[in-house]
């Protein structure tokens, strides 16, 4: 019986490892590092921003602002390709700010699209459940969870 349990455990471990290797080799797999979710994009930063804008709308959200950080930073002499979308919607805004007027520190949600040193485009964000968790408010946590799902759905559509 003990031997059989050992075999099952070993089998599950091997299966999990295989699954992880398989998933991580897939294009567009989300990486999570220190609460930052990163998703690969095969397009350029500009193409990805354009596609994301459509996905944002399809998922019941609005792009409230688009900060071209690369262009702003070009004034300092540095060359980076990075844009940030500020995403929200009036309903979520109303609910969050009604629950706590201080939520402005974390919303609208920021989605960063940038090109790394190897020319790879990434889409990254910090899940709202992380940025809003310090409010310790169940109403906010519920909305944050919903926003997490929307962001995950949106970014999973990135090719």
């Amino acid at each position: 019986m003990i031997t059989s349990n050992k075999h099952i455990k070993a089998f599950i471990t091997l299966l999990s490892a295989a699954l992880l290797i398989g998933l991580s080799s897939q294009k567009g797999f989300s990486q999570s590092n220190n609460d930052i979710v990163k998703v690969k994009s095969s397009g350029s930063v500009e193409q990805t921003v354009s596609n994301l804008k459509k996905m944002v709308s399809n998922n019941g959200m609005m792009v409230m602002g688009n900060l071209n950080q690369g262009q702003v930073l070009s004034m300092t002499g540095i060359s980076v390709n990075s844009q940030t979308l500020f995403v929200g919607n009036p309903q979520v805004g109303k609910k969050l700010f009604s629950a706590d007027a201080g939520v402005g520190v974390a919303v609208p949600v920021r989605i960063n699209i940038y090109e790394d040193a190897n020319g790879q485009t990434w889409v990254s964000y910090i899940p709202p459940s992380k940025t809003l968790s310090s409010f310790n408010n169940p109403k906010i946590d519920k909305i944050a969870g919903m926003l997490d799902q929307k962001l995950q759905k949106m970014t999973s559509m990135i090719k």
Partner: protein
Amino acid sequence: MDTRKSTLILALVVLAMAGISPNLYPAAMAGYGGMPFFSKWLLIPSIVIILGVFIFAKKQQLTTLSRRIWVGALAGIIGTVGLEIIRIFGFKMGWMPGDLPKLLGVLMTDRFMKGPSTWSNILGYAYHYWNGAAFGMIFTLLLGRKPWWIGIIYGLLIGTGFLLSPAVNAMGVGFMGSDLPGMIPVVYTAHLLFGSILGYLAYKWLHNNGWLLNM
């Protein structure tokens, strides 16, 4: 070119131009471009072309066409006053996700992050009323003088189109605004009033019954 043919061609031009305005906001919300760009390169030229056709039709004494243009535009604007009364009431009661003309204004002036200003509000309201005028022109050019209740059907179709559009979807209020219980009745009542005013005034002010091809 005979009068009938030139009237038809010019009417088609006005129809195409009038169709631009109401589609810009949904297109921008769907991520196909920005409202500042759309306003500058599509909305303003479409208004200029409609005005040009109207002046030309007046000069050439294409009276049926010129009358349908101004009746449609004016009836549409007055219909929008009715629509606005319902919409503002609905918004004050918390039944709408936002103040639409103000939202249109901040999108057009690219100041979403700063919020509305007097100028953005003026532009937003002007755009909303122009949409009413555009829908009015589409109605009168296509249908001519028809019983006023046809306007109600037309208004309800516009309301349905709005609720199904990316403009509503982007507000996070569910399919056709179903997550915000008061929204659907407000939108339909407002568009019902718009359509009935438009239909009534078009019936009263137009003389010609024929639809587009029988103008």
